[in-house]
């Protein structure tokens, strides 16, 4: 146990150092002006460090890290608002293939996903909690539109939850023939795009109730990874708010001496630590029957923590907080985006309540 924890700590610290070298606020600000842009230095480093391979089993040329071990790295990525959503979006495809793919499909795609040569994305309509109903599956083909897919502007392959002839279908497709309609969003670095499928060949991973259950499991696993990222963002905001509150003076004393500010930062700290603890807990429950419940709790904590910290950190900074250069808006943009990408809080409240009700029955 002890040596495992030390190993995790070291992984996270190395990640932190690499990120500090490779990703700076001015850098990311410059990319914000280019919709659909990827921060290449980040993605190149992520591949070189083996982050794209982290969650792929060793049998398929991955590193086979646990969700918790890689979570520590995701935490550092979140702290830095690093740009390129692929670690989370590719993970959906990795997870779906491991759980539901044919052996031949795993061998075909997992090594390429591990090396980062192949980028994955997911359109799971938050397990139909956000039913889009705009994507159909029939005769081995996907037809229609998957709206607002993170990483969709760059992805090579996707798992989607579509409407089949007799209920939902979880399908996997290469995106070569797909048309991408990129749109400006508040966080252009997410590469969000509508994917338009003109009768694209796709393989079935699961059907019917099994398909929605599989989609929810994939979403839950993504949510945990994302929660680490959100918790990392929140932690950075707590530190920045604290540093500013100690340095900035008004009425002859540091503003941190005023209750209005100090209580705010204490609240931020509490929320960010809860988000981190909930993420760690969920990661430890991987494979357990209550994993989905723990993931939903982590997601809800993380949404609240990151949103609140982003907003309050701007407030603590006064006028400086709303400048372009401060980069605090990068966190605001990312917090809002991550709060929605895998389905908003209301969907996860439903998921959590449904798992609790099922337990009571």
């Amino acid at each position, binding site marked *: 146990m002890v040596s495992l924890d030390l190993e995790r700590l070291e992984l996270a610290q190395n990640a932190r150092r690499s990120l500090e070298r490779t990703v700076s606020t001015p850098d990311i600000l410059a990319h*914000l*002006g280019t*919709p659909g842009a990827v921060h290449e230095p980040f993605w190149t480093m992520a591949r070189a460090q083996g982050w794209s391979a982290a969650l792929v089993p060793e049998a398929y040329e991955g590193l086979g890290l646990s969700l918790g071990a890689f979570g520590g790295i995701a935490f550092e990525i979140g702290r830095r608002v690093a740009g390129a959503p692929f670690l989370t979006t590719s993970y959906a495809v990795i997870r779906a293939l491991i759980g539901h793919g044919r052996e031949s499909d795993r061998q075909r795609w997992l090594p390429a996903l591990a090396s980062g040569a192949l980028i994955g994305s997911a359109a799971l309509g938050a397990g139909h909690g956000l039913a889009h109903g705009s994507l159909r599956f029939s005769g081995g083909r996907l037809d229609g539109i998957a*709206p*607002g897919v993170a990483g969709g502007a760059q992805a090579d392959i996707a798992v989607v939850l579509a409407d089949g002839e007799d209920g939902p279908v979880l399908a996997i497709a290469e995106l070569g023939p797909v048309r991408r309609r990129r*749109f*400006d*969003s*508040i966080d*252009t670095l997410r590469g*969000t795009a509508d994917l338009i499928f003109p009768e694209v060949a796709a393989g079935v991973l699961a059907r019917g109730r099994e398909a929605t259950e599989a989609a929810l499991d994939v979403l839950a696993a993504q949510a945990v990874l994302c929660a680490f990222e959100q918790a990392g963002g929140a932690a950075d905001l707590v530190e920045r708010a604290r540093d500013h509150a100690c340095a900035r*003076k*008004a*009425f002859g004393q540091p503003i941190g001496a005023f209750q209005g500010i100090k209580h705010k930062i204490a609240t931020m700290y509490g929320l960010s630590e809860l988000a981190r603890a909930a993420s760690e807990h969920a990661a430890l429950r991987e494979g357990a029957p209550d994993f989905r419940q723990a993931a939903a709790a982590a997601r809800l904590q993380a949404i609240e923590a990151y949103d609140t910290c982003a907003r309050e950190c701007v407030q603590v900074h*006064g*006028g400086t907080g*709303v*400048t*372009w*250069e*401060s980069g*605090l*808006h990068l966190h*605001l943009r990312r917090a*809002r*985006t991550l*709060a*929605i990408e895998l389905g*908003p*809080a*209301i969907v996860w409240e439903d998921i959590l309540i449904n798992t609790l009700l099922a337990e009571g029955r």
Partner: protein
Amino acid sequence: MSEVETYRDRARAWLASVEPRFGAAARLGLREDEDLALGRAYLRARYEAGFGGIDLPVEVGGQGLSAVHKRAFELEEIALGPPTVYFGISLGMPVPIVTRFASDRAWARERTIAALRGEEIWCQLFSEPAAGSDLAGVRLKAKRHGADWRLSGQKLWTSWAQYSDYGVILARSDPSAPKNKGLTYFWGDMRARGVTVRPIRLANAHHDVCEVFFDDVEVGDHQRLSEVGGGFSVAMATLMIERYLSRTAPGSGRRSISFCRLRGRPGSPAGRPSRTAASGR
């Protein structure tokens, strides 16, 4: 029907008649300079239609009506979404303060009408790097120069200073007096020698505020809007207006979403809110 309701109906009818020219849809895709020019044209039309300076005294060129009339008009105007944002500070605080505190009444009337018609813009030069919430901490120096004054120092976060013709300024005239007793309130010409304006980029990628530097800028004693050392009370009068204004400003309440959409013009990194971002929580 009450008198205010009748007034509001009249406002609605006029606003509907100018919607094609000045409404939110007409602004889409405009560059900021074009949007500002459209704003000036809108203010002029508004003034000529009798809806400029609704609650300002008739004596200075206003309509002499109540704050309730003004609110009624603004609630209708917000729905139209015309480019009034550049004039929000100007007509909000500095102009009413000038109408109230300037001793040269003919001059005050001239300035007020020019501002109401969108021909001139005023900014509010209060905040500084070391004086935000703690406004009485302002350091910008006002030094006597014969009967007149010289200003030196820096202001920060001054909204729309880059488009402003005039500004109201809170300055420290007596560094030895207690903090809020040593201040004097002036108006100044933004084109005067020694004034430098540097726009600041904000999180929405627009340059809505500026840094303003004063380097030994000449200001006549007739430009004083308070007693010497009595600047803080005029500053408080200014902020009392601002306090109520923020509750009625365009962008407050239900209309703010369409306002945000408009601000994120195509090609701007501020971006349009994504469909989900606008509705999700």
